[in-house]
């Protein structure tokens, strides 16, 4: 039900944009200018708000998950990345985590046969996850060409690398294909694998359908309906200079594309997609394991209950028994 529900919402959004954009200049202004502004504002304000909220929440204890040898005796080989004990180690650990999905790379598949457990390597999720994020990032980077004049060299280089296969005209951009394929695989896991399906919520299907919708509408514009790029750039540059122009004859697919992106932006700060920010703040990964070497301060340590059982209480309760057993006491 969650699957169909999420799919229908995304289809519905596309239809809304399609119908709206066909209704004339006024509605194109709405979908091409007002909605993107509003959604971008929501994305920035709510996204920053969430990160600030997290950031303001204290980290009372030093709780890194250690995945390698601690730094202890000088002759024992320390594992500085898997179990960092200083900031430089943490930076490297975080870089591996954020850029290469280190932890996901550990993934194993547990199987039981004839009462014997075995653990196979399972890198597909890591591969698809990485392919998805890298290609999404590259696609976003490529899109900067619509917002900068003249187009900076690095974007042109990215484009030509992306299209190095030189298939078709315009050249087929690989990241678009990879993005759709990786997203499709991630969706397949949630629909075709029983355990993953069982843990999935509409909130897991919805962003996948949304991103597939964005990617497909983009691909259609580039290779099929061929929107007028010059006019699109006129619009996007207008957005940047607050001149609010919507040139006529851009083509409705563009408005579907922009509306789905706007939805994604506005939805982002309220969803699991905030892992984009959260991954940097996760205390089990971004703290050094040096809690015995350097005292970690909990800002609310004093709010704990202070009632303790002191030695004096203890001796009062057991003094005679202690004396009989020959144990030293403070008060005779």
């Amino acid at each position, binding site marked *: 039900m969650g699957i169909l529900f999420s799919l229908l919402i995304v289809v519905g959004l596309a239809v809304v944009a399609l119908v709206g954009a066909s209704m004339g200049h006024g509605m194109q202004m709405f979908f091409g200018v007002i909605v993107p502004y509003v959604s971008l504002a929501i994305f920035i304000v709510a996204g920053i708000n969430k990160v600030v909220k997290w950031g303001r929440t204290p980290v009372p204890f030093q709780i890194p998950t250690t995945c390698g040898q601690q730094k202890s005796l000088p002759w024992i080989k320390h594992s500085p990345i898997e179990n960092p004990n200083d900031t430089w180690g943490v930076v490297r650990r975080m870089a591996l985590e954020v850029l290469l999905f280190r932890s996901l790379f550990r993934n194993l598949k547990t199987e039981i046969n004839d009462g014997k457990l075995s653990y196979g390597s399972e890198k597909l999720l890591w591969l698809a996850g990485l392919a998805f994020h890298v290609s999404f990032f590259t696609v976003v980077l490529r899109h900067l060409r619509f917002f900068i004049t003249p187009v900076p060299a690095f974007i042109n280089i990215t484009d030509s690398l992306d299209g190095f296969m030189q298939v078709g005209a315009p050249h087929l951009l690989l990241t678009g294909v990879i993005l759709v394929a990786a997203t499709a695989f991630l969706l397949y896991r949630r629909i075709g694998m029983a355990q993953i399906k069982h843990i999935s919520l509409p909130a897991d299907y919805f962003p996948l359908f949304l991103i597939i919708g964005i990617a497909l509408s983009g691909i259609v514009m580039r290779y099929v309906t061929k929107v007028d790029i010059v006019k699109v750039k006129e619009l996007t540059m207008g957005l940047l200079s607050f001149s609010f122009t919507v040139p006529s004859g851009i083509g409705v697919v563009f408005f579907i594309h922009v509306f789905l992106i706007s939805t994604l932006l506005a939805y982002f700060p309220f969803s699991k997609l905030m892992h984009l920010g959260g*991954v940097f703040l996760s205390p089990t990964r971004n703290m050094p394991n040096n809690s015995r070497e350097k005292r970690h301060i909990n800002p609310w340590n004093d709010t*704990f209950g202070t009632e303790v059982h002191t030695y004096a209480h203890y001796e009062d309760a057991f003094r005679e028994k202690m004396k009989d057993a020959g144990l030293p006491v403070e008060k005779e």
Partner: protein
Amino acid sequence: MAKPQTPKPEELVKVDYGTPGKSWIDIPVEFKDGHWCFGSRPEFLEAVGMPNARDWKPDEADWKLPDDWKDTILQGIKERLEKYRSFHIFMDICVRCGACADKCHFYIGSGDPKNMPVLRAELIRSIYRKYFTPGGKVFGKFAGARELTEEVIKEWWYYFYQCTECRRCSVFCPYGIDQAEITMIGRELLNLIGTQTGWIAGPVANCYNKGNHLGLEPHTLSSNMEYLVDDIEEITGIRVEPSWNRKGAEILFVTPSGDLFGDPGTYTAMGYLMLFHELGLDYTWSTYASEGGNFGFFTSMDMAKRLNYKIYAEAKRLGVKWIIGGECGHMWRVLHQYMDTWNGPADFLEEPVSPITGTKFENAKSTKMVHIAEFTADLIKHGKIKLDPSRNDHLNVTFHDSCNTARGMGMFEEPRYIINNVVNNFHEMSEEESREKTFCCGSGSGLNAGENMEIRMRGGMPRANAVKKVRDKHGVNMLANICAIDRATLSALMDYWTPDVGVCGAHELLANALVMTGEKKRTQDLRLEDLPGMEEEANEEGDE
């Protein structure tokens, strides 16, 4: 209340990983026999001033929850969202990728989908969404949100006490989401409305009033130790003379009380006594701080801090310079990651320096508490003790990394170094089942009761399975570890799954191999069992 029967291993191993056809939210919790612990008796909670103490039974419909239980829970969640960045972020960012799902020993052993770490977390996340996020408030079930009901409390209770806070899921999570953290907070919330297990609440009350989980009073502790001292004398001919509550000693030694009471923990305690005697270490035991472990850690941070207080307080009272801690798992998570923050700074102590080797323990210069495996590994490295590993030749040893020293500390090499120097036959379990990927004994975090034996054996199945592999391949017959809970729980686990494998602490193996000054020829190991080979020679000598 009778303890339920545990099915036979050949039945238990048939795990069904199928998933029910409907959403987990629509599946009510079912309390299966052998999967849960008895409720706490009111006097345990009253002893430490915990709220809402009452007589209640988990398998009865009415849990006698306090009238304002719902407000208490919601207020408790709000407070913790504001206090713990970990909890706040872990509520928000899980993408349900499923990488953690088959990493949990309870899921592997039971096949119950709610034992996947992701779903265990969703049990509480669904409530978070409903009451604390706009999406959950507006879209309800479609946003994965649900109402907080008594059924939810029961579900939490059932599943948060089927998690041993082992952190294995957190190793595999791309964002480091740690179910241990969520379970700890979930249990804290349950504690606010007085729903604690007896097996945890009892030791907490004991530890608070008597100094240790087992409730051993001072004279019992010292007389128990006399039995160990007698056994050591029988084995070595040497009478060791430990001291209790001695002011002015250089070092305070703290270990889990289990080591002084039950086999095979007592053999490890004998190992400590023999080693310290041989070194001539100026150290003392304490009856007041006679517990290294901390069952308070399984109820609330507040309680954990109050119990942990005793260690520094006693070190200060006795005027020692620094502290050594014995072999234990969760004890070391607490000492390593929490103690200094709660009860430090220990500025009345000195930075630890081994009086035998002169080594400065730089990594413990703030807490001033050194793990005995660090201390002993340093001794061996410097050649300060004489070892005869052939005395352990009848043993074929593998090593179990305890969850907490592995994933909450990263102590992998120190115990291995010790073991490799004191035994000749050592075989590692496979990489997927050891070190940071080690499997829990299935009974940690206060789940080592009798009435929940089935889930313990299920949760311990992956660990036992790994031991079975090295047993079949290399003839392993001894499972060494550095955890007092392991020594008790792995014994039960081995009895059930692989009956011919024993369980021991690293310092038991060390003391077997330790050549002590002035000792008689060893014919028995620390268990008072004849040493193969040595026995014959002894008889021959006797005949002469």
